């Protein structure tokens, strides 16, 4: 366990100045600023709505972009970045010649990629809540401050996080296998587009495609929430499948990597 923790600490130390880490902070920040600016300029269109509806419209602007394309692509980029730092410097031979268990190096990298994703989604939720409060201060007609949306927003992001773990594990494995950007990125992008098409066409087995899970999860949440009832089911079928795929890929990935020679 100690080896795992120091490996995890080392992952942060190595990546803290790279885009792998900074993207988890900058992306939610920049997107929040841009969308908030849009709502600030067009605040009058939101005025007629109840505070809760204002929140839903505001957060939907983020979640729509996130669920369909941004979250899968962000996960693809982050997993690539976490592993590319070793590929780029030919560091695998050096890492695997250290007196550390291979599982600790492998799992700390995977956990770090998961933590980056969690950080990014937490910041999205935090920035949206902060931006809502700020908009209320700047525009008195916007009444975000009259409704506590935090619980629901955090639950939405938690569901998105869980639904994205399948993609994360697959992409993590692909970027471990290949040291170039195009293969994992290209495959990830194609499968994301494939997932979107299958889901939009209403294919009944679209829930089996991990790259469609964030989108399906989002659509289910939207269909379950109404102005009268904001509750929705957290652990739905696609979330369970995402978790199962994540677990299986994580374990399979370890067996492949641990038996692989470092040339």
């Amino acid at each position: 366990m100690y080896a795992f923790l120091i490996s995890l600490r080392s992952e942060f130390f190595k990546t803290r100045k790279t885009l792998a880490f900074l993207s988890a902070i900058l992306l939610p920040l920049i997107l929040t600023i841009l969308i908030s600016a849009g709502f600030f300029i067009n605040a009058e269109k939101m005025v007629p709505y109840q505070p809760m509806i204002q929140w839903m419209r505001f957060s939907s602007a983020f979640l729509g972009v996130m669920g369909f394309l941004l979250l899968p692509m962000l996960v693809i980029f982050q997993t690539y970045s976490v592993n590319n730092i070793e590929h780029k410097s030919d560091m695998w031979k050096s890492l695997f010649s250290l007196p550390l268990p291979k599982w600790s190096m492998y799992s700390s990298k995977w956990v770090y990629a998961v933590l980056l994703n969690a950080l990014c989604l937490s910041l999205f939720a935090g920035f949206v809540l902060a931006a809502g409060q700020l908009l209320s201060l700047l525009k008195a007609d916007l009444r975000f401050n009259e409704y506590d949306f935090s619980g629901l927003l955090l639950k939405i992001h938690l569901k998105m996080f869980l639904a994205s773990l399948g993609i994360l594990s697959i992409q993590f494995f692909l970027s471990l296998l290949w040291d170039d950007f195009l293969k994992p990125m290209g495959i990830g992008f194609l499968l994301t587009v494939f997932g979107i098409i299958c889901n939009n066409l209403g294919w009944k087995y679209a829930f089996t495609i991990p790259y469609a899970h964030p989108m399906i999860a989002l659509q289910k949440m939207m269909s379950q929430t109404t102005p009268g009832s904001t509750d929705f089911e957290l652990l739905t079928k696609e979330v369970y499948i995402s978790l199962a795929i994540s677990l299986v890929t994580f374990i399979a990935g370890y067996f492949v990597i641990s038996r692989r020679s470092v040339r």
Partner: protein
Amino acid sequence: MIIETRGLSYFFGKQRVLDNVSLKVPMGCIYGFLGPNGAGKTTTIKILLNLLYSSANNVFVFGKELRHSRIEILSRIGSLIEQPSIYPHLSGKENLANRAMLLGINSRRVDEMLSLVDLTDSADKKAGKYSLGMKQRLGIALALLPDPELLILDEPTNGLDPNGIIQIRKLLQKLTSEHGKTVFVSSHLLSEVERMATYVGIINKGKLLFQGTIDELHGLNTTSICIEVDDTVSAANILLSNGYEADIFADTIQMPFSSKQQMGNINQLLVNQGHTVFSLSQTKHDLEKLFLDITKN
């Protein structure tokens, strides 16, 4: 023995890159692992570090079988394989600090290592902007960081200027003589190994062709007598019938040298038997030729 391989063979696909290699590296020596490019040096080193896997349990380090005691063995080894592996976006100091963190080493040792390899002034510069020699020195500092009992270095003087090479040589000699470390160092340069090593292993095409002390290697480096006479075959027969070892090579007689007196006796013998001796000279093969002779077959 600190390192011992027993009939180690290794294949890349169907190509045999190591053929029955039996290394024996004694404690406290500098073992020069010599061979031309592509001879199998790096493959051997990667097997010793468990980066490539031997199909049988035939690699022993510190007396323990490598696959069953991987972590215990690696915790006593510092290594540098091929080009030094460093994170270019981190400074030299951060590269060492990261390694110290992973190995649970006190961060004070980072500054000691920087000073040892003369990188203190460039400690905060990004390692990606280091020259090749500086990167190599940082790689050596990373290998030395855990104060290992065994250092395995693959071509450590690559990219170093003559001063840097001398520094590294002196450092390795000091580590063995004053601190009791063992150094296993590969090189394709005979002169480098000759100056640094106390033991030598010569590998070519995956086969270990020589292994022994540097004195034993020099012992192979014999002096011979080269004789030019009017009738080479007849003169060689006379020498053989008088109990000398003699070979004919390109119209000359070659025979082992033992003393100047012996040369005089041979001259007298041949002249007395009616031969005209055109020349009689000593030929000393240098180690370079010896290395080429060993590795050309």
